[in-house]
């Protein structure tokens, strides 16, 4: 400060005093335990879904003794949540930008129809039919992104509209015809690959490791695809500039623009990528049901949003994680499965999921208060 060429003595004095006061220092202040909990959750928002998941597992281990806590049952849960978790990854991307995609389910079905029907009914080689299905998903997402950015419409309305449009295209292309498992097996077994069952016990046994706790655990390639998709999206969100831009766009679009981010391009890329991920979910869907059903996955949309929200991602954008979504999907799976095994009627599963959603959003609101 001393060799300041402008030499305003008053300023010098004022500033010296100021620096002695130690303004804007980053010290910890005394805070109550609730405030500290809020800060902890603010910093590690994914910890809540983890805790809920563990509590759920603990409860159902007692409520359904012997049935719930088994390798076989966990395999079942994993298979049940695989598709929702993949769609959840797509949905997470969109929700992080403070948007919502109501069309993920129908994009998945349309893509599965494009893959299956092109290969089985029209006899196109699967090497072409499969990329065509991926392209269809990508294109649907691109359309969503373009409408959201170019027409400046709320994503809710846009994807509500495209939900209907893609649904109509699905009926048109599929002619509402189902493709049977046997036909698929004959012409395009590659599309069923994701349903292939692995037995980790046998794998380790062949290496001479007799890990009996793995007995009964079955895994399919679809679950591995899910983990790969999640890993890639995790990487993109956390380790690339694009990921930072996704968060920034959802957090405060004006600030993001002023910081030099092309928010429109980011949004278009997010919706297109989400569409592409839905097409990957389509492949897993075909593996799971063996064939193609234009009527499959009716509840997939809302289930994917549920997984994202329970996983701690904020519907207001800018906050959340892929890991949270995976755990969120598992929570839904564990609660549904556990309640069923405990002998409760189906309606209580829906009831529990509803409670979880409301609790999750309430906690999110509470954590967000820290910003103000």
């Amino acid at each position, binding site marked *: 400060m001393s060799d300041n060429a402008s030499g305003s003595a008053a300023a010098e004095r004022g500033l010296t005093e100021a620096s002695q006061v130690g303004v804007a220092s980053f010290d910890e202040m005394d805070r109550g335990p609730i405030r500290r909990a809020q800060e902890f959750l603010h910093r590690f928002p994914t910890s809540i879904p983890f805790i809920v998941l563990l509590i759920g597992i603990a409860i159902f281990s007692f409520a359904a003794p012997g049935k719930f806590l088994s390798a076989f049952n966990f395999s079942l849960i994993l298979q049940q949540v695989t598709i929702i978790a993949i769609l959840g990854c797509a949905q997470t991307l969109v929700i992080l930008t403070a948007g919502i995609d109501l069309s993920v389910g129908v994009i998945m079905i349309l893509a599965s129809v494009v893959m299956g029907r092109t290969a089985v009914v029209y006899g196109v080689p699967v090497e072409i039919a499969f990329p065509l299905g991926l392209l269809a998903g990508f294109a649907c997402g691109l359309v969503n992104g373009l409408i959201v950015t170019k027409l400046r419409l709320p994503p809710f309305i846009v994807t509500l509209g495209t939900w209907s449009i893609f649904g109509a295209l699905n009926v048109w292309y599929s002619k509402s015809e189902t493709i049977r498992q046997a036909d698929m097996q004959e012409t395009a077994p590659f599309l069923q690959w994701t349903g292939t069952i692995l037995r980790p016990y046998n794998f380790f046994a062949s290496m001479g490791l007799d890990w009996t706790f793995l007995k009964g655990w079955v895994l399919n390639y679809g679950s591995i695809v899910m983990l790969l998709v999640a890993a890639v999206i995790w990487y993109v969100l956390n380790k*690339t500039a694009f990921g930072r831009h996704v968060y920034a766009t959802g957090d405060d679009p004006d600030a993001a623009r002023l910081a030099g981010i092309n928010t429109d391009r980011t949004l278009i890329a997010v919706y297109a990528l989400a569409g592409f991920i839905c097409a990957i979910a389509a492949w897993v869907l075909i593996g799971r049901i063996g064939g193609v059903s234009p009527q499959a996955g009716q509840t997939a949309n809302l289930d994917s949003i549920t997984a994202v929200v329970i996983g701690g991602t904020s519907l207001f954008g800018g906050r959340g994680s892929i890991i949270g979504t995976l755990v969120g999907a598992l929570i839904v799976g564990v609660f549904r499965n556990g309640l069923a095994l405990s002998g409760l009627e189906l309606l209580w599963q829906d009831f529990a999921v509803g409670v979880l959603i409301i609790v999750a959003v309430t906690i999110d609101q509470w954590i967000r208060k820290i910003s103000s």
Partner: protein
Amino acid sequence: MTLEPGTSAGPATVVAPSAEAVPALRARALNKRYGRVVALDNADFDLMPNEILAVIGDNGAGKSTLIKALTGAVIPDHGEIWLNGQPVAFKSPIEARNLGIETVYQNLALSPALSIADNMFLGREKRREDFFGRMFRTLDSAYMQKMARQRLTELGLLTIQNINQPVETLSGGQRQGVAVARAAAFGSRVVIMDEPTAALGVKESRKVLETILRLKERGLPIVLISHNMPHVFEVADRIHIHRLGKRIAVIEPKRHTMSDAVAIMTGAMAPPVDEAA
């Protein structure tokens, strides 16, 4: 003040900038109309190297349009701008930024949920230079964190315990500090600050003023837009007074009082003629 055409070169008083120095940022006869509203009426602007130039003016005087024109956020209808003597015509804020003009916006343009380091490099993230950076566009987080910490330390913004803490957990002054540090880190030629102390308390304002002086010490010319006369008179080398869409005077805080400045700004007093070039 009546608005006559061509007053740009007229009796408007301007403190002579030192001898033949090339202005860091210079504009002549900027015009901008919004329908029938004249936001800029032959406005001139001079920012000399290594000075703090305050820009003051009543609400609606055209200050923000002037600043927007200088930062590429608004494209003037007529007029010329020079950066370090080179004519420039910005089509977007990004273009101005790429040429080294950094702006600290009043709303700071920070992303609250992102960390300090992420915010510092937002929109110009640095990739790793190894295989992963080239193939998978992996960010060089370690480098960005190191640089962010270094910048904040250089500006005396104290030791932030965790460079990865979200910006929303910081106080108003700390956020301002992050925005200023970001501008200082990348603004190679000019830093423009829009009302940096408006939202701050007394102590935090002091800190920001101190930071502004430090930036100047590092040789950066600074444009300070402010309504706060004591702050302006405390740090500014010269004061650009904007009125009715143009620069009507540039005064030195040493030779004028705050009430003079306010009087000129509101039209209660004629701009001084004695300091004309």
